[in-house]
Structures are given as C-alpha cells and as structure tokens.
C-alpha cells in the first residue's frame, strides 16, 4: 500500500527541530491574519454603509459584543437549535432519498464490480466507501446550503432571532444539528456497507474432480503444468472456479524426526507415513489467490478421507504495522544517497537497490530504521515476529525465469548515542525470494544467528558470534536497523518506506472499518461548517457552488499545487498563453514572435498561478481525512494519523464558524 506520510501528532503540532513546520504556529498565524483581515474587511464594509468614522465604532462594537457571544455560548440553547435543525433536515426527506440512492447503488452496483480481480476486496471496499462519501457529503452540502437562506426568505428565522439567542449559538447549533443528522445516515450506511462487503466477498470452493480426496490430486513429479509449486509439494490439484477464480491446492510433505516435537495442527493432514526415524505428514494447503486463501480441513483418513475447503481468509484484515522512521539508500559503492536508483519508472515512489554484477557484488542497499521495537509492542511473541514486504523487482536481463529475483536482509542494533559502550548485534544475511504486488509475509525467528560487533559504522569488528534474541539483543535499545539487498546480479529490488514493516498484530476489522468512516465524518464536519457559514451571507445556489469549489480544491490541492509550482518550467505557458496559442494555432514549442507580448502573458499567467496556489492554501486538505485506502488494503489506520486529521478538521471548522458568527452578526436580520 502506498503511504507517503507518517504523521506523529506531537511533532506535527510542535516541531522543535524546525518550528516553521509546526502546525500550532501556523494555526496561530492563520488565526491572527484572519482576525486582522476580517477587521479590515469589516471596517471597509461598515465604512461603505455608515461612513468612515461611524464604521470604526461599528467594528469596535461588533468585536466588543463578540467576546461574550463567543465565550458564553449556552449548551442548552445550542442543543435546542441543533434539535430544531435536525428535525428540519429530517422533514425535508433528503436523508431518506440519499439512503435509498445508496441502497439502490449497492443493489445494482454489484453488477459492475468485477469479482474476477485478484484483490476484489479493494474494489468492493473502494466502491462502498466512495459511494458513502459522495452521498453523505452531497447531503451535507444540500441541507447546510438551503437551511439558513430559506429561513431568511420565509422569515421563519425571526422565530429564532427574536428569542434571547446569540448568533454564535445559531451557527454552532445548525452545524451540530446537520452534522448529527448526517452522522445518523453515515452510521446506517456504514452498517449496510459492512454487511454488503461481507456478503460480496463471501465464497467457497470445492476440490475440482470427482471426489474430494487424494484421488483428485496428481503427482507433481509426473506432470508438468508449467506452474511453480512449493518446494516440498508432492501432489497438486485445483479448486472449483467460483467468484471469478480458482486456487491451486497442494499436498505438502512435512517430515519430523520421531524424537522431535510433532506437528501441532493436524486438521488438514490427509495422510501420515512412518519410517524408522521419521514421521511424514501430508498436509493439504490451498494456495493464496491475491490476498486471500481458504482454510482446509480433512475428515477421516486414507481413501475415505474427505477434504473440505472452508471460508475465505485474508479479506477482512487490519494489519497494525510498525513502519520505519527513516529510510536511507546506499549506492553500489556504499555511499549514502537521497533516493534509490530510478529504473525508469514515471512514478518515483519507490527507489531501487542494485544487485551488482556477476564479477562485482554491489553494496547498494536500503536501510530501514525502526523505533519502539519492544516485545510488548508485539504482544510478547514466542517464536517469531512478522516482517512484511511489498517489493518490486526489475530485471535488466532475462536471468533465471523459473524463480523470482532474490534478496536478503540483515538486522542490526541501532546503538544509543549516549551509551559509551553500546552492544551492537548484527545478524547474518537472511535470503528470500521476492514476491511482487502482494504482501510477502516473512517470519523472523526470535533467535537468529549473528555477531556481537564493536567499532564505528564503517569498520566493525566481530567480538563474538552466536545465536541472539531479537528483542533482548538485536533490539536491546528499542531501535533496530534492517538492511535490504538484492542478491541477483543485474537485477533490482524496489522499495519505499512503507514497503517494509514489522507487523505487530491485527486489530479487529470492524474497528478499522469504523475508523475509515470516521475519516468521512471529519470531511462531513468541514463541509457542513462551510455550508452553514457561507449560507449566512450567500444564497443557496451560490453557497453550493462555493462548497463544491472548496471540496474540489480540498481534494485536488496537491495537484493544483504541482501545476502552479512548475509554472516557470511549463512548456507552452499557463492558461492565458495557451489560449493565445490555441487561437493563433501555434504549438507549444513555437515562439510567439513578440517578446514583450510573451513576457506580458508570462506575468499574467504567473499571477493566476499564484492566485490559484494561495487559494489552495486556504482550504483544508480533505485527502488527509481520506482513510479509505487503508481499509481497502487491509491496514489499520493509526491513532496519530486520525489525531492529526481530527485536530486540523476541528480547528478549521471552529475558525470557519467564528467567521460565520461575524457574518450573521453583521446581517440586518440578526440584529
């Protein structure tokens, strides 16, 4: 899964290393400039209405009154207004319409969801979350944009403003009421979506063939199907083709010495053979298709055995990853680099490490630094910790086509800089065969062979070799370095920071699903607050256009930012120059012919670009609260991420509501 930001709430709020990156500082600066600009704007409006001298008193009066209005908000009155707003929204029946549309889209939308994809859970979860987001946000826009202007038009607002209610309470109450009604809808949609996802992904298979026993299997050694089977697979079969796919099934041989501890789980053992010194178990295993596999159970033994394939496993997952805090790349000479090698991909999310050549091994590596590597974080595992990798492979020559590109990793203690005599343990290189486009699960044993080393980074000397414990030795400082290399000459392995992590455990899927919907709720709060505030001084249609503009800017601020940032490099110019080129039929490479006109156009385009860029800065980045990809890909949404999104959303909404208060306050109606 693609993760580009790894937020830490504390650092995000106050960044001691670079104060200008602190969100708190920016909040203060934005509010201060907002107050100053608001006062100036208010003064100009008042000056227009009452003249320059009177305006001063008007503005001062409004500011003076705002203090008690904002500080002495009565929860009781806010609750009453919220209740009223919710009732009013409910009576409009928009909520029912929205729910019916949602239900219909689930009923018929399933037709267009291709179940034959390798990862149907991503497509289905993406579909329901996008549908919910779209409908709930649209509902938020509609009810917030129509409410106040209609009340003002119908004069029903007088029934409220003539009561001892503060303008701030009206704004807050309305926002709360609308958010509540949309929350009810969102909760209902979440529940229905959960059931839909569960139903859509549920499927089962049977062993293909006449009988669900060993007779359905063929010997791996005697038939060449072109497929790769596990190293210790002796026979193979297939499941029936259901839900757009089938699985390979293998009869895998496990040998145990008689005096050793035997296989614990025998539920899928089809046959047991005994020799003088060994017991051989033949287990039936269903191979993974995309992100899921199936549980297998075997009833009976020998020829009477019946293989039963259970429900799917792996769709409803919520991994809790421990991501690296830092990723460093090294080139073939072992020199530190900002980025890995680019193998020609347009998307530079991943950097590649090089496998060297046949005659010269490469020192190219990717180094991941992990913090908080403690046994308690991993729920005190007994045998192994799980390392998951999502790698990409790139070949410069055909190589051995029958196996995937090989890599290896090594773990090492990150010493405490304060410790004068740190104990640094470094494991041996652990090889693995890469696996692309799916999460590769590696079990890292708790006891790994390695060395106790001493010395500086470059020149480390082995003090002692042995078998050391993952937590007690390698991660004795709570920090661990994992180095990844590509072993195949002429080949490359591509990684990003989020591609290599330790999986500390799994959280319940429903809780992650809920966290995903919390993101939509945060977006909803922003939209409703904006809607209510804009409707205090704009008509309904203009409010709708306004919010849609904010939403578009909020979701595409990154894209707009990129467009405006690269303005100077843009071949063919910005919108105005492009228009001129269109009209004059001059392609992007041809000079326009008139230098002064060209510079004038450039200036005009630059002004537009800056205007566009500054607009994107003033709207909240709604993508920060979009957690759908986490649910789609089966990753737990971390608390820090939620906290950052929650804080920025609430702060933005409060600021917007204060602005709304002033707008309503200065309108004739609210006086």
């Amino acid at each position: 899964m693609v993760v580009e930001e790894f937020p830490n709430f504390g650092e995000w709020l106050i960044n001691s290393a670079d104060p200008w990156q602190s969100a708190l500082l920016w909040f203060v600066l934005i509010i201060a400039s907002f107050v100053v600009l608001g006062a100036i704007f208010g003064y100009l409006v008042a000056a227009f209405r009452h003249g320059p001298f009177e305006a001063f008193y008007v503005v001062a009066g409004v500011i003076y009154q705002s203090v008690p209005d904002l500080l002495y908000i009565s929860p009781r009155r806010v609750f009453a207004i919220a209740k009223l707003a919710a009732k009013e929204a409910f009576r409009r029946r928009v909520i029912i319409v929205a729910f019916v549309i949602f239900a219909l889209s689930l009923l018929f939308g399933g037709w267009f969801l291709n179940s034959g994809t390798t990862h149907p859970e991503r497509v289905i979860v993406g579909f329901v979350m996008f549908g919910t987001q779209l409908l709930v946000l649209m509902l938020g826009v509609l009810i917030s944009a129509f409410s106040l202007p209609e009340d003002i038009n119908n004069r029903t607002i007088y029934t409220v403003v003539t009561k001892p209610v503060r303008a701030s309470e009206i704004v807050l109450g309305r926002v709360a009421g609308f958010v509540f009604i949309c929350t009810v809808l969102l909760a209902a949609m979440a529940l229905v979506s959960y059931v839909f996802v569960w139903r859509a992904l549920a499927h089962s298979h049977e062993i293909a063939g006449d009988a669900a026993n060993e007779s359905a299997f063929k010997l791996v050694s005697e038939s060449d199907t072109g497929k790769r089977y596990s190293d210790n697979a002796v026979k193979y079969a297939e499941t029936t083709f259901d839900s757009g796919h089938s699985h390979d099934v293998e009869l895998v041989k496990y040998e145990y010495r008689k005096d050793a501890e035997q296989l614990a789980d025998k539920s899928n053992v089809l046959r047991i053979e005994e020799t003088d010194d060994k017991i051989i178990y033949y287990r039936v295993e269903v191979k993974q298709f995309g992100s899921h596999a199936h549980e297998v159970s075997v009833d009976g033994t020998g020829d009477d055995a019946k293989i039963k394939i259970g429900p799917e496993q792996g769709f409803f997952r919520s991994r809790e990853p421990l991501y690296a805090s830092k990723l460093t790349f090294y080139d073939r000479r072992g020199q530190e680099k900002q980025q890995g090698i680019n193998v020609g991909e347009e998307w530079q999310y991943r950097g590649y490490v090089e496998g060297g050549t046949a005659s010269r091994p490469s020192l190219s590596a990717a180094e991941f630094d992990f913090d908080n590597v403690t046994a308690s974080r991993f729920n005190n595992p007994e045998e192994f910790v799980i390392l998951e990798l999502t790698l990409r492979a790139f070949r410069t020559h055909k190589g051995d086509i029958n196996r995937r590109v090989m890599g290896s990793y090594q773990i090492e203690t990150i010493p405490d800089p304060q410790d004068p005599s740190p104990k640094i343990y470094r494991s041996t290189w652990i090889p693995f065969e890469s696996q692309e486009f799916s999460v590769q699960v590696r079990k890292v044993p708790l006891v790994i062979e390695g060395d106790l080393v001493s010395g500086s980074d470059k020149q480390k000397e082995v003090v002692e070799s042995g078998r050391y414990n993952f937590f007690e030795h390698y991660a004795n400082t709570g920090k661990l370095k994992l180095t990844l290399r590509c072993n195949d000459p002429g080949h490359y392995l591509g990684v990003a920071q989020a591609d290599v992590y330790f999986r500390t455990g799994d959280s319940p899927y429903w809780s992650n699903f809920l966290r995903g919907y919390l993101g939509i709720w945060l977006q909803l709060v922003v939209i409703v607050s904006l809607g209510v505030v804009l409707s205090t001084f704009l008509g309904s249609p203009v409010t709708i256009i306004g919010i849609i503009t904010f939403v578009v800017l909020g979701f595409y601020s990154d894209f707009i930012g990129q467009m405006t940032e690269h303005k100077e490099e843009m071949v063919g110019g910005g919108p105005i120059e492009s228009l001129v080129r269109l009209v004059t039929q001059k392609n992007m490479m041809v000079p326009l012919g008139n230098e002064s006109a060209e510079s004038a156009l450039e200036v005009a385009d630059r002004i537009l670009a800056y205007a566009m860029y500054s607009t994107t800065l003033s709207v909240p980045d709604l993508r920060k609260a979009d957690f759908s990809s986490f649910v789609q890909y089966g990753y737990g949404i971390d608390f820090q991420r939620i906290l950052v999104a929650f804080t920025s959303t609430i702060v933005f909404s409060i600021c917007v509501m204060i602005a709304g208060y002033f707008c309503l306050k200065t309108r004739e109606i609210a006086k």
Partner: protein
Amino acid sequence: MNLSPNLIRKIVYILIIVALIIPLALVGRPSGGKAQSGGAGGVLAQMRDEHGLSQAKLSEIDPGSESMKLISLGMRGIATNILWTQANEAQKKGDYDTLKATLQSLIMIQPTFVSVWRYQAHNLSYNISVEFDDYQHRFHWVKEGILFLTDGIKYNRRDHRIMDTLGFFTGNKIGMADEKKQYRQMFRFDDDFHTALEPWHEIDSYNTPHRHDNWLLSYLWYGKSRDMVNSGVDGDQVPLRVREPIYYMKQPAQIRNQAMALHREFGADDYTRQLWEKAETEWLAYGTRPFKAGDVRNMTMERITEMGEEIELLQAELDNLVPEGTRDEITAQVFENANETQKPTAEEDRARRIPVDQRSPEERQLAQKAQDKIVGLNQDMFLEIAEKAPPENAAEAKQVASKIYRLYRRRNTSARYGEIVNYKFWKQRAQAEQLPDAVAARRAIFEGKKLYYDGGILEEWEQTDEDGKAIGEKQKGAIQYFLDGFANWAKVLDQIPDLKTGPLSDEIADDMLLFYGKVLAKTQRDWPEDFPLQDLIDRRNINNEQDGLPTTAMLERQRALRGQQGGTNQSDYIPSDLPPSPIK
C-alpha cells in the same frame, strides 16, 4: 394592441426556438423501422444506417452500457477523459485491480470503439504482464487481456479486427514471448481459461495429442474472422479493414507456427508432419487466391513465374508487330539517361537476349531482373514500342502493350507481396518438413539433445544400475544422433536446395550445429572430416553469416598446422560458451 418590449422579446425567443426545433427534428428523427411509413428516420438516422453505424447494427444493446451512457448526461466525452486519466494513473502506480475496474467502466461508455478494446487489451497482455517478475503472474495478465478483448466481440459484431487481435495475442503473446515454454505449458492445462473461452470455441476444438495448443486456437480465431468477412453478419457485408494479401496470410501461418512449436517441445512426429501437410495445402490455397491490392486486381503469388513467362510471350508478340530492332532501340534510349547501377549487369543483359524457350532457370531469373530494371527506368516503354508499329498493326500493338503493362503490374505486385509474406520460402519449407528425411532429421536432433541432458552424451551409451554396473545393451548416444540428424538434413537440403539459405538454414546452424559443436568441444572431439552439412556451413560463410562454425578452409588450415606440430586429439574448434552441464 400595445405590446410591451418584454412580451415582444419573449415571442421572438419562442419563434427562434420553434424555428430551430423543426430542422433539428428533421435531422435527428430516429429510425422507426422500414415497415412503417417514414420509418427510415431523419437524416442522421439514414446516414447511420447507410454506413452501418447504428447501435443495433454495431453491437448488441447492452442495458448496462446504455445506462452508463445515459448517466453521463451527455458528458460522455468528459467521463471518458476522466476514466482514461484514472486508468493511466492506476497503471502508473501499479494498481492493476483499479485499472481493470476502471477499464470495465470505460468500455461501458465506449463499447463500439474497436481501438479502445484493442489498445487496452494490448496494454493488459503486453505492458502490464511484463511488469511482473513471476511468469505465472505474467501469464495471468496475458489471459486478462485476451478475456477483456473477448468481451468486445458482442459490441462489435461487424468488425473483424477484434477476432484478428485475439488470434494475434493468443498466438504471438503466448507462443513467441521469452516465457513461451512456460506459457504454452500453462495454456495446455488451464481449464478455467478454456472454459471462459467456450462461448466462442468448444474446448475440444483446439485439443491436440499434446493437449490444448495456443497456435491452434489462434488459427481458429483467424478462421472466425475470415468467416465473418467472407459470409457477412446477418446478411450485411463486413468490410475488410486490412489489405487482402496480408489479411489472408494470417490463418495459414498459424499452422506452421504450431508445427514449429511442437518441434521444439516434443520433436517431429507424424502429427507435425500432418500439420506441415495442412500448412502446405492452405498456403497453396492462399497463393492461388486472386487478391486485390490497391488498384491491382487478380494478383496471385502462385502465378508469379507463369505471369513472367506470359509477359515474355507477349513481348515477343509485340516485337513481331513492330519493325525489327525497335525494342533494342527503345531500350538503348532508356539506358541513355540511366547510371550504371540502374542498368542491368552484363550477365543479366546476356540472359535477357537468350530466347525465352532456351533459357535455364537461372537465366530466366537473370533475364527477369534485367527486364525489371528496364521497365523500372521507363514504365511506358511498351507503349512507346507500340507507337512505332506500322499503321496496320498499330491498334493490335497498342492492345498488346497495355496488356503487358497490366500483367507486369500484376506480377510485380504479386512478387512484392510474395516477398513480404515470404511466400516461396514457406511453401518450400512446408514441403520439406513433410519429407520423411526431415522428420527423421528433427527426431534425431531432438533425441540427441534429450540424451545429452540425460547423460548419454557420447556416440554410444548404456544404462547403469546404482553401483555403476551396465544393464541392457549399448544404445545410440547423443553425438551419433546428431550425426544421423545432420545426414538426414543434408538429404533434405539436396532435394530442395533453395532452403540452403534463409531461415531454415539459420535454424539448423543456430539451434543444431552450434549445439553440436559445443558438445564436441565438451567431449574433446574433432569436427568430423566428412561432415554431412559442411557444404551448408561453407555456403553460409560465403554469404557472410557469422555463426562461428568451422568452414572447410578453416578445418584444413587447422589440420595442416596440427600435422606440423605433431597433432593432438583435442578439437581446435572452441565455441564461445558451452551448453549447460548434463543433469545426470
């Protein structure tokens, strides 16, 4: 009556609207079926019908697709753009499931754009498949592309290009990729895939003694396309969108591809021999089929020589109608402005002057070349010759000249396409591969290679038990198999000498002789003195084919040198790299 300006404005607006609606209705009236009066519909409906563009003609009416088009509310273009952008973005980021889902939506709103189907299917089968490192994943995406394209058939019932592309992907991508060995093997056993293709091809229809074969399926796809073009759909003609000679070449070509693939995988046998027989029959049928290419009609590749002879006869007839020496005179005029490279060589010119019935096959070829060069310099030379005819022969001479001209163009076009599709070579190759000697040759080389990897590397070998004790009789070893194979190849090449140059000789050199050379080097044996294919090696050397095989001159030099030095038993032929070590 006093009309307010507002009312007047409104009336004017209404009148303009009505005035615009009338032509709009006339143009856009839908077709109501021919049985009803005025059922042909408006101008647009009539034009759609005329050009076979109406939805019902193009494809089945799919409710899903129609709903998608309706939902886009006339903004189909924008929706298409957004979806294409999304698809590109998903591809860029390696999110192929999203890409596939996006494509499903995309084709719903662009179902009758054959290019979209072909482009995106190519994208899946060729571009996305290679992003994966594991060949099993690659094969999965190759199939995804093929299955995606099959969805497009029902939406484009009157366009043969989807079937052609399916034939191409099924044959070329599975049978020619680097992973062809693995792909073809997986294809044989992929019952789910074959079941998915059942609506178009019965599973058994492309079954062979070696299970399902992709080349045979490719042949069947091309066959379906050909049926569509030849018989039309629902009584309507299906326009051919590719040049005839190229289009009709595709189907027979798949038979030989199948045979060649089976040679590699299982060696030659009676089944492959039958395939070559079929390949020859269909290739000859292709060669005798009259094609249209541009404004040239009735061109046939099989009649190139015949047409050449006919031209010669007509030229003689023309010579009889004009004063003696006219042709030489005109030819001399043609040569006046030409440089030396444009003129025929002395040898060609000499062959040209030999009477037609006295020329040897080689002289015939040279004379043809000379004639081509002369006509190439002046295409109107026959008409110019005819103009010199006395008045009583003028009409007939002109008629003969234009006949020569037409025939000449037909022959040249046939020859050009013959070269493009390598007609003559494939005809001779199909004939050669059916010869018992060729089957025996391929069988022997295949067995030789197999034995090499199984351990029977020398001239003779015998099976041994666990203690290394010989069991059974002595058997022929790999080296002997190779020698037998080459002897048989020599017999084949003697029967059809044209094949001593070209792709078959390349295959023998690269795939068989070089392997044999490496085996000799590995076993420290000399290159045999009376090697059956030495003539082929020498000929390739003369033709500058740098394959590193020892020529007669090279061997003689080495032998002479060895004689001076006292001689060793070691082969002097050192290949660039050795074949993989025998497994056992």
